[in-house]
């Protein structure tokens, strides 16, 4: 059955008259809901995102402040001396002169005579597989002086800069053949970033620096270090020429 409903102005007036007490509160509630959904919720989401961003930026600021504090309090002279000590222990390139001076100084101190020595040029660019991050320069040298003095010589070499390691050792009566690695490391290519927290040197690092400072350092000796060369020693080729 099809029923038709006619709403005329009087009916509307009547409906309004009957429900006028409800209309305003309902409109207010609807508008409030609209505002809540359309503005308040998006604002809350945006605020939470902003808070996250603020947190990140605050952390960055904290890092910057700490770095500034650390750098302001760092003593320039101490830094210079620490840099000098560590660079002598681990040079930034193949320090042929430093190596020869260290070897000569160790020989002088232990009374052994140095025979022939040669740099293993072929291995210069190779990294030591045991210590992949530090390339090394290999030096094969002959030492004359017997078992005990040779061991003392190695001990002295281990307490000298630049840092070295004896890879192979062969002592035959009074003559010893040593293969020694002298480590070096170029400066890092990646530059310093202020956003990365700078850490003060750990106690271990400071101890290491103090220990290295007490090692034999040919540059602390005035004048050239003389070599205890045995009569059979042959002259060494120019390092710069051999490194090519």
């Amino acid at each position, binding site marked *: 059955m099809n029923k038709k409903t006619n709403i005329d102005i009087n009916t509307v007036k009547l409906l309004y008259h009957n429900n006028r007490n*409800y209309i305003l*509160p309902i409109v207010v509630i609807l508008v409030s809901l609209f505002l809540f959904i359309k503005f308040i919720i998006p*604002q809350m989401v945006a605020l939470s995102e902003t808070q996250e961003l603020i947190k990140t930026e605050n952390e960055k600021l904290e890092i910057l402040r700490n770095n500034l504090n650390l750098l302001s309090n760092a003593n320039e002279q101490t830094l210079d001396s620490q*840099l000098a000590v560590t660079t002598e*222990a*681990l040079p930034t390139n193949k320090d042929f002169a430093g190596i020869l001076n260290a070897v000569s100084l160790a020989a002088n101190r232990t009374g052994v005579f140095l025979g022939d020595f040669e740099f293993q040029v072929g291995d210069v660019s190779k990294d030591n597989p045991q210590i992949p991050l530090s390339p090394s320069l290999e030096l094969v040298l002959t030492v004359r002086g017997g078992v005990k003095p040779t061991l003392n010589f190695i001990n002295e070499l281990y307490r000298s800069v630049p840092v070295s390691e004896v890879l192979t*050792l*062969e002592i035959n009566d009074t003559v010893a053949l040593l293969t020694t690695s002298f480590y070096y490391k170029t400066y890092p290519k990646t530059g310093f970033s202020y956003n990365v927290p700078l850490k003060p040197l750990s106690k271990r*690092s400071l101890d290491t620096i103090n220990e290295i400072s007490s090692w034999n350092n040919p540059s602390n000796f005035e004048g050239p270090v003389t070599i205890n060369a045995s009569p059979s020693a042959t002259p060494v080729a120019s390092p710069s020429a051999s490194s090519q």
Partner: protein
Amino acid sequence: MNNDINLVKKNVDGADNRKTKILRNGAIAFALLIAILSIILFVLSRRNSLESIKKEQNTVLQNITFLEEKAAKFDLINDRIRNIEKVLDARKNYIETVNTIIQEVPNDASVVFVSIDKGVILMTISSASLLSINEFLDRFIGIAEEKHVIKDTTIESLTINSQSERYLLSIKAKLL
């Protein structure tokens, strides 16, 4: 006229009054809630503004720029020391072990050959007395058992040099 037909309500009863009151209070509460939330959001968004943090960051950065040289030195020292520690941790120092072994060589014996390669020590001692050779061998094994600085000890050879009439003992072990 029929009295039952009356389009205008004569009396608003109590139930209707209550409904209106609840609805009105609800509307006020909603409106207040929205107003309070808006104020809170406004205050929160004004507080800790990102701009002020960025501004402070720039100020600190400007101050750090004056200490650029120090920062570079600091970075380099850290890089050097990190690598030095790596090398020192990884490098082997067998000299102490060799010295310990040599100290155990009897007086009437002498070390004629020592070789260390890839963590293996090969040592030859010479003596006119077989007893001394035996004594050294016992001590060498004792070092392996007690001091744990060597392992896998093997005797490579025991020979006699007829010209010098001296015994030669070659012994091999892995260095720990």
